[in-house]
């Protein structure tokens, strides 16, 4: 078991190494370099020299990669051109904001999705299923920029209950933050919950049709006990990996929602730094987001392994 965990961690590290190589090489083979790209027409004379010096572009590429990589391992991502400050200072608040947004959405969305999925499966083709399924399919199909804009229009402009745009002062209290993120959370949860509820539904339906559920009924196990002991543990197992992907997506992939609400998260930072041509920041973000995906998927795989007795004993036997 321990060997397996180490093996998986090793594989994750190799993945990250390859990602770092690709991003670094990608930047290298682009015409020009980080400085000419950033400075554009002003890329001459003293400004260019200063930039090259600052980024160390005058030394050979492989040395620069080793330098950069060893700094990244130590947690130092280098210097942001547009912010004119260390990247770590740019990233810090963004990571925090994304984490807050993601964790609130997860805390609300995932339990809701599971409950809705179970309800729709147990009352399959009856009124609760028809109603919930209609709503989930509806919210799955509306693109987020439309649902987000509509939310702003209705809740912020017509009703005036909540701010339409997120402005977070750096010393905001948790409560201030919370009232600011309600709308983005709702916009994100709508899609996320809908997707996951559909998945939970089909998984529960599949397990409900299995021989062992019929056996449990014929054994005289009361309905709800059967649902909780015999159905859910087996039905929710495949959901773990989907949850993991969702979390990773929440941390870096909710670009549209962040842009619509002007929410200063990681997703928007990606867009901003690309449009600012701030290549060092783009590189740093690529590594960070890749680590998030790798890390969360690793955790999910290990959890599945722990919870599924079949896989567990398979591994031990090996």
């Amino acid at each position, binding site marked *: 078991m321990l060997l397996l965990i180490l093996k998986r961690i090793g594989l994750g590290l190799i993945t990250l190494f390859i990602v770092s190589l690709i991003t670094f090489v990608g930047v290298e083979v682009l015409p020009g370099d980080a400085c000419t790209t950033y400075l554009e027409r002003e890329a001459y004379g003293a400004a260019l020299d200063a930039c090259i010096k600052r980024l160390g572009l005058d030394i050979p590429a492989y040395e620069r990669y080793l330098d950069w990589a060893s700094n990244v391992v130590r947690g130092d991502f280098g210097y942001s051109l547009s912010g004119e400050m260390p990247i770590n200072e740019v990233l810090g608040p963004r990571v925090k904001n994304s984490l807050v947004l993601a964790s609130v959405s997860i805390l609300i969305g995932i339990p809701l999705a599971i409950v809705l999925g179970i309800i729709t499966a147990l009352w399959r083709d009856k009124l609760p299923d028809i109603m919930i399924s209609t709503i989930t399919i509806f919210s799955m199909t509306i693109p987020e920029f439309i649902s987000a804009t509509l939310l702003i229009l209705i809740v912020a402009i017509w009703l005036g209950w909540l701010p339409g745009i997120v402005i977070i002062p750096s010393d905001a209290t948790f409560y201030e933050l919370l009232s600011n993120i309600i709308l983005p959370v709702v916009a994100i949860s709508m899609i996320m919950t809908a997707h996951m509820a559909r998945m939970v539904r089909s998984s529960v339906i599949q397990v409900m049709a*299995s*021989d*062992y*559920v*019929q*056996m*449990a*009924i*014929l*054994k*005289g*196990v*009361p*309905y709800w006990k059967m649902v909780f*002991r*015999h159905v859910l*543990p*087996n039905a929710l*197992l495949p959901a773990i990996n989907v949850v993991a992907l969702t979390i990773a997506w929440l941390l870096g992939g909710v670009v549209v929602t962040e842009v619509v609400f002007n929410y200063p998260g990681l997703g928007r930072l990606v867009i901003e730094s690309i449009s600012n041509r701030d290549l060092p920041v783009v590189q740093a973000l690529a590594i960070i987001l890749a680590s998030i995906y790798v890390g969360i998927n690793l955790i999910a795989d290990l959890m599945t392994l722990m*919870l*599924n*007795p*079949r896989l567990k*004993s398979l591994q031990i036997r090996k």
Partner: protein
Amino acid sequence: MSEIIESVKNLSIGFNSQKGKQISILRNVSTNIKKGETVGIVGESGSGKSTLALAMMGYIKQGLFPLKGQCLFKSEDLLKMSSRQLEKIRGRKIAMIPQNAGQALTPNLKIGYQIDEALRLHTDLNKTERDKKISELLNKVRLPSPETMAFRYPHELSGGQQQRVAVAMALAGKPDLLLLDEPTTGLDVTTQAHVLELLRFIAKDTGTSMIYVSHDLGAIAQVSDRIVVMYAGEIVLEGPARKILKEPIHPYTYGLLKSIPKLSLAGLPASMPGSQPQPGSINEGCSFYDRCNLATDHCKKNSPDLEHIKELDTNVRCFNHKELINQNNNLQTSITKKSNNSEAIEVLKLKDVSISYAKQKFFDQLFNKISDQNPTVKDINIDIKKGETIALVGESGSGKSTILKSIAGLLKTKDGQIKFENDRILSSDLKMRNPNDLRAIQLIFQNPDESLNPNHTVEQILSQPLKLYFNLSGEELKKNIIDLLKKVRLGEFYMSRYPRQLSGGEKQRVAVARAFAAKPDIILCDEVTSALDVSVQAAVLNLLQQLKEDLGTTYVFVSHDLAVVRAISDRVAVLYQGRLCEIGPSQNVYKFPSHPYTEVLLGAVLEPDPDIKPKLVAEDIVEEKPPEKGCSFQGRCPRKIGDICNLEVPPWQIGENGNAIRCHINIDELASLQQ
């Protein structure tokens, strides 16, 4: 008269068709289960036997509903009870032992928990008493080390052990009635015999009534006091087991018994024409009319009622049953095969073949070799003559299908050679074989549902080999397809059908036709009849034999069913753990002296005759890997003589009948031991 526990009265169960018509799959069924009695319900797939059994627990499958009638358990109607009331009865008064215990045990819960659950629901025992009871139950179903067994997950047990756990779980609530839905189907022959023996013991020990549902008359014959025969949703014959099996007075039961291959009989079983009608397709007349050789015009228009025959104590649904009573019906007959005209030309030779499933290690991959010292299949030497049917027999894990795959080129051999026609070595890699060799060896798979492409019509399925090997097209292609269909006794109109529109037997005929389309020299048959009903199985066996006699094809026939093998094959090779134990002409392999493993297998075969009891001579342990040294059967052998069996590979000995046995015991001594 002992007390009646459950009685089914005029029960009909059905569903609404897409056209809004009510279609019944169970029609007007009435029967009584008495205290302490074991009733066998027998019928082929689609006869409604499982629906009836589940209804007796008040359970109706989704999509079905009761149309009329009652299921009275101690004079209360189960079909009218609320789910609360049913929870009190299920598991406590009536318990179920499912068909496939591997799938019927919840995978995430330990064995102990699942039995404990039944105890908590249905008894008042406290925790320590329950723990004791769990060990007791596991002990009662003869599972090894009950204390540790409780902490295992279902998938960690073998099939036979899982089935035993299901039995223990059903016994936990001390039920008055046990319902067994095909409890031994899918188990190996020896395991099946052991589980049946256990069930018989439990019935005697606890006095529980049992309802035993199965398609297998052999299993039914071993346990039942009374037998109910179902056909197309109706009871057609009901009576004491011995009477039903020895003097069946319904033409369906008679035909069914005739179509079962028997160990004691050489030759093929007689088949019944046609197949069971689809639910809803019969509007008038007897449901067996189409397939009955006693049918008259009267049967076409009128449906017979269940009639009680006093002197035989049976109920029968047939106008002409008297003819069967009067007819001197002899069940012990079979169709004799033409003696094989094998002209001693060896068409396929397996020489020292070993096959390994072990993953190649990195360095072995570099040098393209497999360094498995203990391969799954080892040292197989078989010479197959032209025009003969050779059968490979053994339980699951014996390597019989593995060998077949290697001959087909689907699995690489580790060592040894496969020689085809004039000692030409066939590459063990499919891609290296020339097109003519590929054509010459064809495969028929076990399950036609999976081997026929569901999106192709029969015409498309059959045209593929014809196009590929003979480049046919247009009229000529069509003519060939019609010819092929005629060969397997299917009409021209089948060309436009899709596999889902065919019955199981028809599908397997199409699969046979596809194999013959290539005009092969050798056909590899992988358990080709085990997914089929008995009456259909007999028809497919007869078809294969007929085709062979006409075309001179060679069959390599893999099966776990010794009686089927006895019926079809000229020569038999018995395998255990991928090693040959015995090989010889089939009439001699089935006679003694034989290898102790063959003896065990033969002893475990269930005959549809209550007077022939299986002989259980070896434990039904499952061995995961073949032993590294010595005889492959050392772990289970009832005749083991000592260390020599563990250390040395036994020598081949040839008996006077021409069968070769690989055993350390002298063949004459074996003969006297087994007499």
